[in-house]
């Protein structure tokens, strides 16, 4: 309640304040009243003045409008008089021209007549001019249809008598008498007939070419090229004629008409091509041979396809080139003639071109080509794998180079077809083949494993001596080992080859397909990038190979060598220390054996694989040594001895590797440092703030553990350390 009362008070106070403000304003309004009255009278005067002016202006402008109207009547009248005069002139002129067979002149008169507005002129009928006008119109209409007949007839006659000049003469007259479409149709028919004639001659010639002729294997590609070039020439010659006399925007119907003939001729050539190349049977055969259960005897020899594939790609390349030419010409014309909806019109052109018979026929051929090319590639690679040989001295076997040679050949051939979809499909097929067939082959061979239980070094020596004595070629184990390493190399090289292939193809694709649409380029790019992931899959197989090698040849080999180290006492006095210096207890022998191992493999591994191998070996050495150290006991001199031994080992490994080995030995080196201390507390000179550039790889617990290996260090001192 109290709260409510308070807010009520507040409101009342506010209202009072407002009242005083309102009163002040009222007062000032009262003062302004006389001024307002003055203003009112003034504005009324102004308004009457304005309305007077406006009436005046309207009167004037009305008169001007009337004048305008009168003037335009006069102009129209003069125009009409002129037209009537023209009409008379045309009527007389056309008769004379027709009589003189001056058809251009006659057409010009008709053209003028057709541009007149007949209905308007006829409005003058009823006056005495009427009857003469009527006759004029009648005469002109008669003349028009007469001229049309004459032009049609004479054009046909000219075509018949192969009178090129007359053909062109009448072709130019058609548009004058509004017969654009008829003219273009007749003209393109005439040109088509010429194209057809030449094409027929060319095809017959092609069919009679002897197989000894050096063009005989691509004769149909040559023939189709002649067809395209012929049409291109026809367009080249007649395009200016069409543009000049028929105006812009006529190239599309003109080219479309010619395309019909092109389609017809292409069909004929493709038909003959299929017939004489035994195409349908081969396609059928390849389809059957691609079935998984096809036996070797049923299969078609891929080499039989080689020549055919080349011709197919050439045919398509020519067709692509030609279609691009047509498109360029038509689109350029669309661009000058079409003000709006240009993209729509261009889309219409594109649709026409991609739907025409030529395109369809080529799409079918490319489809068959892809199937056969895939078969060719796969079968050739299978052959290469079957005939795989491995020559002593070589790092890889023959199938790697052979397989990649084939893949490259096939993808490149696809590229030569200029078909973006064809190249994409072949890139996909190449990836599939490499991954499913080739990689799996390598993988299954690596799965056989690296034979263990037989010392390679011994075997090597044994085989060498056996060969020298001519007793034995090579033991089975030895062969299996060599094969395994060769496969490991094959896998590594393959993965590199794929990267190189990708890079090279990329460059070539940019060159060949630089002109195609951005969208198509992205498509190509995407298919190409699949190669990278295939390359990685080969890497995985290589890794798998190394795990095999590791468990068979690295781990078990190093074990006994490290055992010698474990068996060497590092609790030694001065005398023994000196004695060790003279007669090294283990490390020199270890290095010799290691050196032997590395050298034997080095001879059989590629640089990349050898690096990986050495890396695996060193890692294994450090792991096993570390384990051994932690099981041993040391005194001061023993620690010194171990430090010396480790330095010798690191020194050796540094000398045989290209990368820095010290990092791998960091933990062991730090262990040696600890074992080499004078007293426990000395560790603090190297630890924490005193560590300087040294980064400890051992945890405090591990440091303590190593310290306890020193029999002369007291457990309490170690425990008391603050690490």
């Amino acid at each position, binding site marked *: 309640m109290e709260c409510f009362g308070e807010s009520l008070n507040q409101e009342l106070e506010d209202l009072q304040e407002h009242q005083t403000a309102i009163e002040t304003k009222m007062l000032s309004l009262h003062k302004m009243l006389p001024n307002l009255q003055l203003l009112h009278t003034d504005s009324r005067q102004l308004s009457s003045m304005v309305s007077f002016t406006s009436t005046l202006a309207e009167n004037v402008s009305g008169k001007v409008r009337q004048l305008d109207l009168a003037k335009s009547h006069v102009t129209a009248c003069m125009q009409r008089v002129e037209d009537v005069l023209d009409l008379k002139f045309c009527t007389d002129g056309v008769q004379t021209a027709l009589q003189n067979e001056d058809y251009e002149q006659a057409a010009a008169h008709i053209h003028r007549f057709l541009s007149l507005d007949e209905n308007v002129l006829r409005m003058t009928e009823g006056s005495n001019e009427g009857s003469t006008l009527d006759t004029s119109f009648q005469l002109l209409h008669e003349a028009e249809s007469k001229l049309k007949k004459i032009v049609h007839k004479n054009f046909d006659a000219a075509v018949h008598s192969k009178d090129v000049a007359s053909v062109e003469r009448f072709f130019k007259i058609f548009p004058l008498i509004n017969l654009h479409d008829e003219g273009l149709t007749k003209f393109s028919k005439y040109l088509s007939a010429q194209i057809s004639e030449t094409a027929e001659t060319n095809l017959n010639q092609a069919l009679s070419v002897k197989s000894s002729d050096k063009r005989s294997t691509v004769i149909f590609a040559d023939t189709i090229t002649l067809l395209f070039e012929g049409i291109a020439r026809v367009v080249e010659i007649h395009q200016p004629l069409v543009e000049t006399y028929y105006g812009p925007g006529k190239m599309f119907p003109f080219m479309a008409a010619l395309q019909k003939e092109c389609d017809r001729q292409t069909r004929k050539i493709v038909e003959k091509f299929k017939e004489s190349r035994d195409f349908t049977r081969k396609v059928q055969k390849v389809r059957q041979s691609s079935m998984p259960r096809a036996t070797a005897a049923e299969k078609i020899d891929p080499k039989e396809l080689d020549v055919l594939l080349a011709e197919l790609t050439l045919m398509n390349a020519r067709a692509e080139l030609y279609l691009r030419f047509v498109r360029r010409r038509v689109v350029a014309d669309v661009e000058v003639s079409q003000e709006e909806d240009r993209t729509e019109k261009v889309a219409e052109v594109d*649709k026409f071109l*991609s*739907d025409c018979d030529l*395109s*369809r026929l080529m*799409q*079918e051929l*490319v*489809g*068959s080509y*892809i*199937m056969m090319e*895939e078969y060719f590639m796969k079968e050739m690679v299978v052959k290469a794998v079957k005939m795989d040989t491995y020559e002593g001295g070589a790092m890889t076997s023959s199938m790697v180079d052979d397989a990649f040679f084939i893949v490259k050949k096939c993808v490149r051939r696809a590229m030569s077809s200029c078909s*973006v*979809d*064809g190249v*994409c*499909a*072949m890139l*996909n*097929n190449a*990836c*599939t083949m490499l*991954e*499913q067939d080739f990689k*799996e082959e390598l*993988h299954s061979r690596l*799965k056989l494993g690296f034979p263990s239980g037989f010392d390679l070094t011994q075997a090597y020596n044994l085989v060498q001596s056996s060969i020298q004595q001519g007793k034995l070629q090579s033991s089975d184990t030895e062969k299996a080992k060599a094969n395994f390493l060769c496969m490991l190399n094959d896998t590594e090289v393959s993965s590199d080859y794929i990267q190189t292939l990708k890079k090279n193809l990329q460059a070539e694709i940019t060159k060949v397909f630089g002109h195609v649409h951005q*969208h198509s380029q*992205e*498509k190509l790019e*995407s298919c190409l990038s*699949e190669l990278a*992931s295939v390359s*990685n*899959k080969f890497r*995985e*197989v290589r*890794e*798998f190979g190394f*795990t*095999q090698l590791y468990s068979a040849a690295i781990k078990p080999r190093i074990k006994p060598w490290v055992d010698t180290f474990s068996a060497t006492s590092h609790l030694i006095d001065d005398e023994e220390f000196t004695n060790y210096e003279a007669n090294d207890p283990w490390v020199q022998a270890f290095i010799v054996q290691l050196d032997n191992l590395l050298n034997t493999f080095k001879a059989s591994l590629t640089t990349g694989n050898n690096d990986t191998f050495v890396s695996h070996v060193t890692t294994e050495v450090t792991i096993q040594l570390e384990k051994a150290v932690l099981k041993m006991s040391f005194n001061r001199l023993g620690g010194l001895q171990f430090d010396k031994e480790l330095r010798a080992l690191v020194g050796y490994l540094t000398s045989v590797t290209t990368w820095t080995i010290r990092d791998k030995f960091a933990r062991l080196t730090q262990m040696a440092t600890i074992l080499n201390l004078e007293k426990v507390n000395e560790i603090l000179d190297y630890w924490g703030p005193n560590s300087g550039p040294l980064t400890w790889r051992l945890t405090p617990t591990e440091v303590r553990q190593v310290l306890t290996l020193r029999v002369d260090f007291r457990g309490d001192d170690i425990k008391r350390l603050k690490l």
Partner: protein
Amino acid sequence: MEDYKYLFKVVLIGNAGVGKTCLVRRFTQGLFPPGQGATIGVDFMIKTVEVDGDKVKLQIWDTAGQERFRCITQSYYRSANALILVYDITCQPTFDCLPNWIKEIDTYASSKVLTYLVGNKSDRLLHREIPAEIGEHFAKQHSMRYLETSAKEAENVDRLFTEIAVELTKQAKENFLRPRQDSTSGKVGMPNGGSSPVGGLSCCKLN
């Protein structure tokens, strides 16, 4: 470097005229193209979607249904992470062809590919020739997922592609989180096409 976490390939297949291109255009451009012409060869589009805050790039390959392009389109199956097999619910022959398409998938695609059966043109109710249950039953028989869509009315189109993106991302994450197996028994040793079918190390990219 583009900003995405996973890249998946989605391939659409099915008879000519069933509406594959329209589905893709609806999804990628949000429109129903008037007078859509038949696809020549293979077309491709990209759309990035978000799945649980991760950018997922879908590379969509729209294949031509016409027979003469079959050799070209087949080459895309193997690397597909998902396949969308489309038929037209108002056109019995497109449904009758499905077994042939299944055969193609079995021959060329990876065995673990995610496959959707899609009955398109669901807006043309009065002209329906294949009841939804029949389509669904067929899908189940061939262990495919089933959806009916309309590219025209934007019905289920986003859902179709989103479901695919979600499922593939899920699979990729599982593959990735699974501890790397010993190569002797792991993915390297798997049969053809089985090697990392989804995402995994090969077809997804981590930035």
